[in-house]
């Protein structure tokens, strides 16, 4: 009796993953009840995130891996590849870039010129940087510094700025904030050549400035409100792992469903497994696109 019970239990467990031959139904983990459960799991995750944000501010939030040092290195790498001289990081241009990024969050716009007509040069001049040449590149929704520079390099106008011989100095700002109701990271890159060549910066000036700045992303408005400058757990990354794991697991179960049903000649009266595979695979592609949805301007 014990053996029979054990056998039944084992058989029952197996049907969480493979179709029921006798009942001619899908594996338990692929039934619609299971999908409602998965949906509930994600809703609970969202609820947990919202509660955590209030109860433990600074732990969960939006964060990216972009740093000023990496942006500078990547910019100079692409310039060196094209035989151009390296740009020197300027404190004034970086401050101008930071002011520009904060202004875009404040006025909730995403453009070189604000709706009120404020141009990028205003921020540069505000830092007492008298230039003979100046330029600006913008990026948002990227996670890594390399992706930002690669995206600029793919656009002819941004590439022109990156590789221009008219610039000697560059400034960066990486600012987190809320734009159009969503948390995002804005990257502002400002190029310049001072009118007075005697004011040209040296590598020593650059190193001095680099050592003085925090390599982490500049604190966002929201983070400041939360009383913390950095988040312990990056929410999009956490969600990305969770969603890809569950979708991958479901996709694998659907493939097992097809294989097992064919092997055992199970003719189920259900929806089309191939169609389900398509929608799950497309969802994974969509998630990939959402997480790679960086924009440049």
């Amino acid at each position: 009796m014990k053996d029979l019970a054990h056998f039944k239990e084992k058989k029952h467990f197996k049907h969480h993953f493979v179709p029921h031959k006798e009942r001619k139904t899908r594996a338990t983990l692929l039934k619609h009840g299971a999908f409602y459960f998965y949906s509930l799991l994600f809703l609970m995750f969202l609820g947990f995130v919202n509660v955590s944000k209030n109860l433990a501010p600074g732990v969960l939030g939006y964060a990216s891996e972009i740093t000023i040092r990496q942006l500078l290195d990547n910019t100079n790498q692409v310039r060196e590849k094209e035989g151009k001289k390296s740009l020197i990081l300027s404190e004034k241009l970086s401050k101008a870039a930071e002011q520009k990024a904060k202004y875009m969050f404040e006025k909730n716009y995403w453009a070189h010129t604000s709706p009120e007509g404020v141009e990028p040069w205003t921020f540069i001049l505000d830092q007492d940087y008298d230039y003979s040449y100046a330029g600006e590149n913008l990026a948002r929704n990227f996670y890594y510094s390399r992706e930002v520079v690669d995206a600029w390099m793919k656009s002819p106008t941004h590439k022109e700025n990156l590789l221009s011989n008219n610039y000697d100095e560059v400034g960066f700002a990486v600012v987190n904030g809320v734009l159009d109701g969503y948390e995002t990271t804005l990257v502002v890159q400002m190029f310049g050549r001072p009118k007075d060549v005697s004011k040209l910066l040296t590598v020593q000036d650059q190193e001095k400035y680099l050592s003085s700045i925090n390599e982490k992303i500049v604190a966002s408005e929201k983070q400041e409100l939360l009383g913390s400058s950095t988040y312990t757990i990056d929410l999009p990354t956490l969600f990305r792992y969770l969603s890809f794991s569950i979708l991958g697991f479901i996709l694998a179960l659907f493939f097992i469903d097809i294989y097992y049903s064919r092997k055992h000649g199970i003719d189920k009266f259900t929806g089309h497994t191939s169609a389900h595979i398509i929608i799950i695979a497309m969802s994974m592609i969509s998630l990939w696109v959402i997480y790679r949805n960086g924009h440049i301007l």
Partner: protein
Amino acid sequence: MSLKKHLVEYVFIILYFSFLIYFFQYLGTSPNARFIFAASLPTFYLLWAVAHHLFEERLKLHVFLEYLSISLFVFIILLTASNL
């Protein structure tokens, strides 16, 4: 329904989804576009499933619920991902 017809329908679904994803890349920063994108994929899938099974004369409640549950799940995942 023949295998060929099924394949044609699947290719149509894939093309439509690919178009949506491509479109999203350009309008993904707008909150409305994000919601429309998250909703349009599962909605289209559910409508396609209903039409397809009606045409095949095998639309039953449990088949509809199967598509509904998967569509709801996909919607929640996409909406959450585009809002984080």
